[in-house]
């Protein structure tokens, strides 16, 4: 399932570098929750990609503008109905799925707007959160889940199995899956037991091809 081709990623955050590898040159990209615009800036510089980032935080918006990235200061929870069907090659949402009000509806919207969607999220099924909750009886705090229960923006945490169940229900094709640890490295263990050993999950999704 994994691709092992890599491009040059001078200083790009590891998870964004992984996403960048999946995006085809010249694509039109919509990046939901684009932060400081690092992914789009990289894709513009190295893959002739065009597109827009959506971001709610004012300081991040300024960073995007300074980086020459098209950024739209919008709230993902307000919906994406202004974007037309199939108007982008890729719709990306990195580490924001668990922060939105209705992740299932947002995934629907991503699939509607983009030919391909790329979603990443922290895997709550990883053994560390399981140990923390199951044995110690405490909400997990870790590298990929750094916040405490009362100040976390994560309101819809899920596991790899949860997410794939949702994809099955929605009849979504999982084009690729990649699970990595907090340092964004993968190994055979994670590939064999993704829900137990993967800390961060990356998915490329597509509407189920109807015959």
């Amino acid at each position, binding site marked *: 399932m994994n691709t092992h081709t890599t491009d040059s990623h001078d200083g790009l955050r590891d998870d964004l570098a992984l996403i960048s590898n999946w995006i085809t040159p010249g694509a039109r990209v919509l990046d939901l929750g684009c932060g400081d615009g690092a992914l789009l800036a990289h894709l513009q510089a190295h893959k002739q990609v065009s597109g*827009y980032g959506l971001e709610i935080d*004012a300081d991040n*918006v*300024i960073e*995007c*503008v*300074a980086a*020459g*990235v*098209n*950024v*739209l*200061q*919008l709230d993902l929870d307000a919906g994406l109905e*202004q*974007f*037309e069907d199939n*108007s982008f090659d890729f719709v990306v949402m990195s580490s924001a799925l668990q922060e939105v009000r209705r992740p299932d509806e947002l995934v629907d919207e991503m699939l509607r707007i983009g030919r391909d969607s790329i979603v990443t999220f922290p895997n709550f099924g990883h053994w560390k959160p399981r140990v923390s909750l199951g044995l110690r009886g405490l909400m997990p705090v870790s590298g990929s889940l750094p916040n405490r229960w009362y100040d976390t923006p994560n309101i819809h945490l899920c596991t790899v199995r949860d997410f794939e169940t949702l994809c099955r229900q929605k009849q979504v094709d999982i084009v690729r899956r990649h699970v990595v640890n907090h340092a964004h490295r993968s190994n055979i263990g994670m590939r064999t037991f993704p829900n137990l050993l993967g800390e961060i999950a990356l998915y490329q999704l597509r509407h189920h091809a109807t015959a």
Partner: protein
Amino acid sequence: MATHADFPGSVGLVEPHTLHVEGPMPLDCGKKLSQFELVYETYGTLNADASNAVLICHALSGNHHAAGYHDDTDPKPGWWDKCIGPGKMIDTDRFFVVCPANLGGYNGSTGPHSAHPETGRHYGPDFPVVTVGDWVRSQDILRDALGIEQWCAVIGGSLGGMQVMQWSIDFPDRLRHAVVIAAAPKLSAQNIAFNEIARQAIVTDPEFHGGRYYEHNVVPRRGLMLARMLGHITYLSDEAMRAKFGRDLRDGRISYGFDVEFQVESYLRYQGASFVDRFDANTYLLMTKALDYFDPAHAHGGDLARAFEPVTARFMVISFTSDWRFAPARSREIVDALVDAGKQVSYAEVTSDLGHDDFLLTMPHYVNTLRAYLNRAAVEIGA
């Protein structure tokens, strides 16, 4: 002689220039101006390849005097002095800033108060109704006269933002960047309704004399004052008025009469009265009509994205959360159409308190966003 150093952070003393244009210039209404004058100011220095020019388009009550002072005793600088100057948001150390007064205005470019070339009398009501498109065409004549191939950016707030959109559609090759602040792609019925009340206040003033009040040596004072008072309410948010005036009484007690009692009444009367001294009633009528008529999507069956098809400029669109005259949703209509048309656009929604007039001020998020945007624009052209 006062110098730049006497006005720290300001462009200092400035003087207006005049461009005489021999027409005829055809207008959207079908009439022609046989000749006209455009009055404008410039700040900063045009670079060798004339690539660092920025055009400022003014709003309803603006004019060519956007920054600096006209003389040492000037109590107030130009209308956008907070944002235009050395090191400011629109940095005159890097850009050559040009601000013309629009046709139909007062105390500037040719307008109803000017002398009609044939009769020698004031145009008055005979001054043709001008549109945003007419303004942009006249500004393009100024561009050419100044030897500028392409504006680095065209910037405007409110009605000024509408001119920016028109520029990007009518003269796509003549601007690199379009900065649209606190604007709308067209007026709503509510917006037009407010304008109509303002116009009715003016034309029903007994001193209006069908627009020929100059010849009677009067001004429709009450009408223009009411128009401005009404307008001012729409420029401020409910929250801002609450914070500024609340229900404070001017004399501390209710007098059971109809004279000024609440502070907000006093404020509005002051705003209205001082406006009469610096503005012209016929100009007010023309400016509100230009607002009402602006609708670039109209020629494309209401499809704004299609209207934006010729656009090559990159857009920065900014709105303010407390603005209810042109609320953020109106700016998002512009943004959505640009996205649909596949154009380059960024959008910032600035959290604010004051209302529509926030675009004249310097909230950090607003200033830093536009500064970052214009910095890139300057770097692109090596300024």
